[in-house]
């Protein structure tokens, strides 16, 4: 196997006295599509937030693209990363949020072009051309002048995906991207992600309660419980033939709650 693009080693994270992630280790191969499932509070969203550097870590080590994420070398020793290092590392990673977090004061097109212009020094015309391609891909070519408030939830989320893609990250993080949507709007977002998964070789990490989508999207499923990986494997094994009692209990509850498997 080639060098993994993400390497998590003995990661710990606590908020005050509450331990959310407790000695977690796993690797992600370049291009791999990973689904993180588990009960709420099991730490799966926290992992995405840590990878995006929205949270700090309490212990352990993460490498992204062969470089430590929260550490850097200084005078031969390894020290905690400064903001400049974090900023440089963030270029590898993009994220789509549960609540979209579009910039409400900017048009759809400007939402997508803002970061490429500011952070990569792209010319406005080039950034706009690329943004239009992305809008085409997510099926919103006619919405470039719209303001976010004029869009439905599903449309907002598709713009948010285009915004993240515009920076051409190696790794995309999807944090419960359909959880805030009305049921009839879920599919339009999932369709975009399906296309992404099949047409690009981006590495993708997905936190979701859509088990049906997870099983068709993912190469590998990690089931989390209490800040650790309880069970992992290909979707067929985890969803059809789980070994762990806790996995079975979780899947039963999810089905009872009306989620599709």
């Amino acid at each position, binding site marked *: 196997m080639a060098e993994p693009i993400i390497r998590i080693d003995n990661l710990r994270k606590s908020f005050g006295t509450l331990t959310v992630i407790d000695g977690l280790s796993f690797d992600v191969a370049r291009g791999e599509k990973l689904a993180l499932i588990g009960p709420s509070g099991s730490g799966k969203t926290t992992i995405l937030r840590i990878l*995006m*550097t*929205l949270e700090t870590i309490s212990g352990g080590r993460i490498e992204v693209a062969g470089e430590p994420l929260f550490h850097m070398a200084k005078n031969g020793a390894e020290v905690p990363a400064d*903001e400049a290092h974090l*900023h440089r590392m*963030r*270029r590898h*990673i*993009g*994220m789509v*949020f549960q*609540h979209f*977090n*579009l*910039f*409400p*004061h900017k048009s759809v097109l400007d939402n997508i072009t*803002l*970061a490429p212009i*500011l*952070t990569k020094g792209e010319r406005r015309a080039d950034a706009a051309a690329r943004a239009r391609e992305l809008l085409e891909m997510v099926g919103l070519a006619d919405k470039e002048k719209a303001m976010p*408030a004029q869009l439905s939830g599903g449309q907002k989320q598709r713009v948010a995906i285009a*915004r*993240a893609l515009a*920076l051409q990250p190696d790794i995309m993080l999807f944090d419960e991207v359909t959880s805030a949507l009305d049921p009839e709007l879920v599919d339009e977002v999932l369709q975009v992600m399906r296309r992404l998964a099949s047409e690009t070789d981006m590495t993708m990490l997905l936190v979701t309660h859509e088990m049906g989508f997870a099983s068709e999207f993912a190469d590998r499923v990690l089931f989390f419980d209490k800040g650790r990986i309880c069970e992992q494997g290909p979707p067929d094994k985890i969803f059809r033939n789980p070994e762990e009692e806790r996995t079975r209990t979780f899947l039963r509850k999810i089905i009872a709650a009306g989620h599709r498997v």
Partner: protein
Amino acid sequence: MEWDWEFAGRVLPLLLSGLRVTLIATVLGAGVAAVLGLVFAILRRSPNHWISRPTGFVVEFIRGTPLLVQLYFIFYVLPEIGIRLSPLAAGVLGMGLHYATYASEVYRGGIEAVSRGQWEAAKATNLTTRQAWVHVILPQALPPMIPAMANYLLAMFKETPLLSAITVIEMMGQARSVANSTYRYIEPMTLVGVIFLVISIMSVFGLRWLERRFGGGHR
């Protein structure tokens, strides 16, 4: 005492030249307050306690002491340690500093009203902290603040007569010097009151318009 129209007519041009100083002091003071207030608000939010705590202390100190005392201090005490300012400069600095502390509270409220998700989106799209402030946070935080800021501008305008205490010849100072030399108070003081009233009423209409335009959440 009788109202003397002829005297009032002679006083009015003097008062209007004082009004010019009043307006200059208000505009400059507001500029100082707007900029310093933003600086206070941002420093107070710093994750570094060695920055945020002293800033908080300074802000509370300024807000907790009367403007008149501060004006006296700036104009009469600072020269003793070698900082000499003209009356107008001292007045602008004093009013600007004082109102900066109120403005910083308005900024704070406006900045905190921008959701945490906006900071996170800025970070996730790899903007620097400065770029996040300039392109994401402030453009959302500022418009809803405009009515509250305009309110303080009006309040500051009406406090400019305090500047006459440190020898700024603004409208009130003019009125007082006329009154002191002629022993007639009724015309100059009435006119000062009327001029303030007229400008305030016009400003209130402007304020209403600003509230309709920017207040009350999303357009």
